């Protein structure tokens, strides 16, 4: 956290905001506010330059064409890569996750260059993965079992320089045959759990906030979001 507040940059809601992605910004603002930490959120349109001074950058899901446009503009801009170099937190979902990698599949499955901020490669799979997803998060992240909804046809292969975010308990995730979901490297984290993944997983929201603040966060009282997480896990796993 470079100043007295957490600066959240929601990247390109005009292109990458298909599945309630706004929920992730709302939850970060709220969980920070409940701890007395002020936030400032920038809804960054794709014709604007990416600011370098953000603490948390969010990328959402999108259709094929908007995904390709977003990747082109972010590559041309270069601001996100600079922010990552200076230690910013990045949380990317679905199309946003794929475009952080070296390449992803376009409308016809053609490879499209990504940003190379995560050592992953994505392509187009045979079947669309649609449904609830549950996973056990990499132990070092200290986040309880995650629940989400996935809707994608991507297959993502992890390279040497990333770690799998979670082991799939239910659902498809990366779909590359190793049973993993998502990937992370340092403070850059991507997942196929789309939309308000941080809503259904308050622990994951707190992981990102903790990274941004640079210290342990005080725990919060149980909320409806915690009940939602429990209800979803029960509904899917029972």
């Amino acid at each position: 956290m470079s100043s007295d507040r957490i600066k959240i940059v929601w990247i390109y809601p005009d292109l990458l905001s298909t599945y309630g992605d706004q929920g992730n910004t709302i939850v970060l603002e709220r969980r920070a506010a409940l701890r007395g930490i002020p936030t400032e959120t920038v809804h960054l349109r794709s014709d604007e330059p990416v600011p370098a001074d953000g603490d948390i950058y969010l990328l959402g899901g999108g259709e094929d064409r908007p995904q390709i446009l977003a990747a082109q503009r972010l590559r041309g801009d270069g601001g996100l890569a600079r922010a990552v170099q200076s230690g910013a937190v990045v949380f990317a979902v679905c199309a946003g996750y794929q475009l952080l990698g070296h390449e992803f599949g376009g409308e016809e499955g053609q490879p499209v260059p990504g940003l190379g901020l995560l050592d992953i490669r994505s392509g187009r799979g045979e079947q669309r993965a649609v449904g609830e997803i549950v996973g056990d998060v990499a132990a070092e992240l200290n986040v309880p079992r995650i629940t989400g909804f996935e809707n994608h046809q991507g297959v993502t292969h992890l390279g040497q320089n990333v770690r799998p975010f979670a082991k799939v308990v239910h659902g498809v995730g990366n779909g590359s045959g190793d049973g993993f979901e998502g990937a992370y490297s340092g403070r850059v984290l991507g997942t196929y759990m789309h939309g308000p993944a941080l809503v259904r997983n308050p622990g994951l929201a707190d992981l990102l906030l903790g990274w941004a603040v640079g210290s342990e966060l005080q725990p919060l009282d149980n909320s409806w979001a915690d009940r939602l997480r429990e209800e979803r896990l029960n509904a899917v796993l029972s």
Partner: protein
Amino acid sequence: MSDLPLRSQLAVALGRTAAKMSRMAGRGDGSVIGGRVGLRLDPELLTRLAKDRKLVLVSATNGKTTTTRLITSAMTPLGEVATNAFGANMPTGHVSALASAPSARYGVLECDEKYVPMVLKETGANVVALMNLSRDQMDRAAEIWLLAGKWRRALEASPTSHVIANCDDPLVTWGASTAKSVTWVAAGQHWREDSWCCPECGGPLDRQDTDEDSDWRCRQCTFARPRPDWTLRGDTITAPDGRSYSLTGLSLPGRANRSNALIALAVVAQFGVPPEQALPLLSQVTSVAGRYTTVEHEGRSIRLLLSKNPAGWLEAFDVLQPAPGPVALSVNAQGPDGRDTSWLWDVDYRILRGRPVWVTGERRIDLAARLEAAEVSFTVVDDIDQAVMAVPPGHLDVIANYTAFQTIRTRYGRVV
């Protein structure tokens, strides 16, 4: 109908029997099963049934059923009109609608967005009304940019079809602009989160930000809003000949229904029904398949509003009783609703602050988490009855998504 081939006549007859049996078994109006049986026996049945009729296809993300009803009502001066009034909006429903009105020379068919190309090809519809496209049930619906692209190809291949399209919606405009002849209707667009980018080139769209002015153009290419033939300002319509008409007599509430009425007027004008003749007929429509109906129960007047996606919720909020009027919300996530509830986070619920709000439905905890984050006070209840009995006698607005709406509608006597 009498000139149908024998096989098609048999297909129609067996379809009707199946529909009747389905109705007797209490499984809805039977139009889907009836059409399915008919199409199984004669795969070209839709084409045959459409022959020699003047047909309108009505498609959009929101407002299809209501607009279909409005158009049908306004076309009654022309004679009998075949229509799929109950929202069975795929080819099976179209077959049933046409088969059950064999002598109708006109037909108004609500059409699922994905099926527009197929139904257009099979029926060669005379008029296609395209109203709006926005995010909707993403786990099963097509992505809308892709969908608009398919409309373009279908309309290009159907040069005899005339299109009535909402030019305030950039994606609809793009989807319609390959048609040989188009009437552009400025029907408004309130949900804009899916139209910040040019559908043609992906560049940023510059837009007027007021509800009253929806002008837009691409900053990078020549794609821009066409000049509208019909316009809507508040509740005043201006026709292509410059004459103005008031919509204050409409029975259906809200700006979304003023838009639907405008589209309906433009469609029926294409068949020679002038606005002054059509308007009183539009006003006769007071509810559509239970939507906007007010039911009386235990001293409460319960008004039922159906909203299936973020754009639809925005329009439902527009017609709520003024604050602090109580509101009950019910959300399910069954197949027809979409199993993914993430769209709740695209709806701005802060407008409900300061009202008593009750929350129910199978996904009430999703809704509770959403309202909690929006800092809206609410009470979670197990079913709609608890909400109804908790409010004082008087008005209660109920907003529900598809299957939740059907449950509530059935609970209060399957009102129409």
